[in-house]
């Protein structure tokens, strides 16, 4: 708490001059640094940085982000030719990796360290410091009360001590002075402990997340059902994101084969409901091994049910169809025969894909088009799918001849680069074909393309290695515990003075006790309480304590509520 009030103390040191000359405070380099540090670690700065962080995070939810969906960023840039490049210069498509975003949270973290570490030291001292003495007049404290109790002073002090102990207070009982015994107690010291724990855990959480970014990796791959076994390696993923500190030797060569993939889609609702055709279930049976040729096990893989392989978690994230397509040249020689994944574009799995046949001659051949699990022809939209299940599967394709890989650069397996290709024509109009399962369709030159009757699915797998996630979770939960401690506990000091009733020295004029009870059997307890910070329930808590003491003594609580508030 030392930081809260210290912001401007450093600047006023030179203002004692006689003349109206403005004296710039002579701080020197060290002084300036200290001043800056104090500014940075002040509560006010933390508050501003928090607000700025909140504002800075927003654009990332409004503009498409490269890290999430690079395709949408490209589309956005195409559609916004003027403002797009400017936004890009401001890192609006990479907000969470942008330097200005990093600047904000790094400043916040430094502020946090600078604030929390000194507080830890102060708190550690405070925990060991002795309890203060009882103030003279308890009735002047923010909460106070007094009661006459049917008990000897000794019993009453003992009951007070026990009650306070039970409630987690630190208690000190002073020796009697002039027949009056004082009890001092302090509670809720764990509030500050909880608060510090929360802030420290926040720090650890951020470090753990940073560790995941630096040392973690993620690889995505599409594996058709029943096909060959996938072996994890740097080159075998469709996309691979490596953190800057990842050693590629750490990518272990585990194997995985998708035996079967079961997907169910909603059919029990009216066809015009938005729920119609939504996926309902998605379960794969996979066979895994820790290395090629090693012992394998068959198990279940589903979303929310990842498979762990050698420290890497494999998730089932997507699915689609991979029709087995065969292309033969006019003489019947097989040029292409494989399960070809198509990428779903909508809930009804209208999927795009390409068939690349470099073996064709004299020129390379490429097909491009749609796979439709339940094909229908719409007047406006052309070929569409109306349901994600295989009710009426069809391939709708066009063809191109030429150079499939014009620049030798990597390209998406789902599209053709037609820069150096020409469209295959059937007479004047482009050649188009609809291929149904088991059917064969001829190109004008006699090349044939066919689709197998059985249409396998593919599983979209994501392998992830996140070394920091356990730490992140642990610190988040511990931080939450600290937060709850700091929100629910109250820092309170409680003072009691106990003396035999009727024999008082009248130093407390607010109260007059004229009744004289049976000697030794009645005692007067005067109570006061003090809180750090705001504590609207202080009086209630004090009264509850007194009730607790009386109950402990076997009396019914008198609950004659306190006076001064």
């Amino acid at each position: 708490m030392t930081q809260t009030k210290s912001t401007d103390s450093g600047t006023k040191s030179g203002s004692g001059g006689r003349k109206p000359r403005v004296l710039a405070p002579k701080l020197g380099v060290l002084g300036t640094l200290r001043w800056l540090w104090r500014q940075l670690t002040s509560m006010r700065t933390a508050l501003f940085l928090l607000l700025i962080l909140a504002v800075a995070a927003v654009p990332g939810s409004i503009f498409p982000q490269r890290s999430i969906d690079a395709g949408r960023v490209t589309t956005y840039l195409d559609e916004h030719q003027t403002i797009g490049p400017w936004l890009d210069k401001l890192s609006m498509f990479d907000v969470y990796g942008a330097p200005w975003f990093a600047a904000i949270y790094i400043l916040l973290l430094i502020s946090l360290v600078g604030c929390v570490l000194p507080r830890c030291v102060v708190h550690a001292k405070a925990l060991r410091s002795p309890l203060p003495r009882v103030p003279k007049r308890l009735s002047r404290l923010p909460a106070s009360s007094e009661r006459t109790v049917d008990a000897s002073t000794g019993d009453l002090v003992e009951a007070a001590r026990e009650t306070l102990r039970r409630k987690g207070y630190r208690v000190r009982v002073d020796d009697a002075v002039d027949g009056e015994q004082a009890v001092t107690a302090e509670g809720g010291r764990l509030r500050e402990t909880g608060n510090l724990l929360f802030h420290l855990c926040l720090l650890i959480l951020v470090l753990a997340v940073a560790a995941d970014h630096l040392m973690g990796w993620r690889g995505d791959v599409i594996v058709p059902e029943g096909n060959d076994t996938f072996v994890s390696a740097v080159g075998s993923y469709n996309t691979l994101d490596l953190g800057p500190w990842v050693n590629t030797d750490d990518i272990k060569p585990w194997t995985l084969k998708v035996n079967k993939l079961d997907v169910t889609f909603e059919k029990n609702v009216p066809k015009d409901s938005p729920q119609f055709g939504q996926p309902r279930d998605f379960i794969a049976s996979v066979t895994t091994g820790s290395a090629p040729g090693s012992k394998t096990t068959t198990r279940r893989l589903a979303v929310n049910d990842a498979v762990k392989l050698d420290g890497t978690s494999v998730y089932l994230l997507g699915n689609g169809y991979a029709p087995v397509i065969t292309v033969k040249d006019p003489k019947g020689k097989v040029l292409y025969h494989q399960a070809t994944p198509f990428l779903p574009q909508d809930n009804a799995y209208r999927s795009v894909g390409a068939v690349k046949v470099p073996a064709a001659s004299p020129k390379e051949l490429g097909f491009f088009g749609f796979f439709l699990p339940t094909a229908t022809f719409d007047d406006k939209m052309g070929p569409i799918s109306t349901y994600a299940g295989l009710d009426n599967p069809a391939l709708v394709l066009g063809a191109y001849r030429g150079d499939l890989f014009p620049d030798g650069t990597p390209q998406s397996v789902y599209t053709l680069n037609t820069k150096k290709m020409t469209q295959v024509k059937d007479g004047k109009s482009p050649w188009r074909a609809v291929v149904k399962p088991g059917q064969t369709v001829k190109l004008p030159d006699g090349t044939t393309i066919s689709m197998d009757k059985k249409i396998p699915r593919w599983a979209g797998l994501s392998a992830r290695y996140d070394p920091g996630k356990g730490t992140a979770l642990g610190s988040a939960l511990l931080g939450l515990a600290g937060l709850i401690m700091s929100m629910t506990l109250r820092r309170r000091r409680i003072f009691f003075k106990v003396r035999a009733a009727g024999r008082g020295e009248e130093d407390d004029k607010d109260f007059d006790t004229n009744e004289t009870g049976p000697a030794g059997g009645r005692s007067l307890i005067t109570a006061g309480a003090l809180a750090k910070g705001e504590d609207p329930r202080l009086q209630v808590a004090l009264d509850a304590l007194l009730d607790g003491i009386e109950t402990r003594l076997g009396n019914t609580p008198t609950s004659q509520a306190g006076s001064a508030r």
Partner: protein
Amino acid sequence: MITLTPSISFDWGGHATDVGLSNLSNNFLYASAVVLVLAMMSFAADLATYPGRMARAEQREAEAAEKSAAVSAGSSSGGTAVLERTAEGTGAIPEKRQWAGIGMSLSWLGFLLVAACVVLRSASVGRPPLGNMYEFAIVGAFFVMGAFLGWSLRRDVRSLGIFVVGPTVLTEMLAGLVFYTDASQLLPSLKNYWLSIHVTVAILSVAFFTIAFSTTILYFVQKWREDIKDTKYKFMDAVPGSEVMDRTTYGLLIIAFPLWTFTVIAGAIWAQKAWGNYWGWDPKEVWSLVIWVVYAAYLHARATAGWGGKKAAYIALAGFGCVLFNFCVVNIFIVGMHSYSGM
């Protein structure tokens, strides 16, 4: 690249939706909205009769004071104390606030009706009703009323009734008229027990944020009235002053904040299970973080010298703005993996 069509294994029973039950559930929602509108009107009547009630109470007090002055003339020292107590006593037993009583009874009825709506909806789909915006809204209304009525058992909060029941009615109407989604099975990625945990706590904390929003608005109103020494809107004297409203807001937000913290953590755990990534800067995640950071700023503001009172209250308002944005705008208009609005 993989399109995300996440899917799940956790089965809550291949339960076909029961149209009869879900229609019955809708009727309970309408009934609840009507009853709560009546409750609102009763609370309004209670506020409107406040100035008259106060005037009568003052009169009685004056009479009582006369009497007790006569009584205490004899005893010298205890005089003031007795007088105070008597005055307090008449203040504490004012005439019965019939309208407020009716409002509370209607609130309980409206609460039970919306509870029935939630239960029947849940029965009709055979899963917790946490799958789309309509369901979030009805459960939210249920929680707001529950929190308010629970609170009313411990404190006299009748004069806040209209300000809590009002937003609830609004939510129920929005739910029935704008967000309505036919009862159906869940998207597969929602079929997980983490959904129940994450979404239930999220709605619960939003319920607290909502009540805290009402008390923040009341804080501004009362502050304004105190600043201009308002006498025109005397009925607002029934509502506690700005300082109490400020403290009440704080009290509500220190409940809501840890709940929201837990919501974000549970969401991250769920995202790790379902998508393999505990934090992916999805718009919904971003806005949850923004809400969290803004309310953290509010708590800091309360502890920073010179930032209490109005400034902190503005931050609390901004926080609730983010809550609304997260629920209404992000769910419907922003593309992300949380597009479960069912719209």
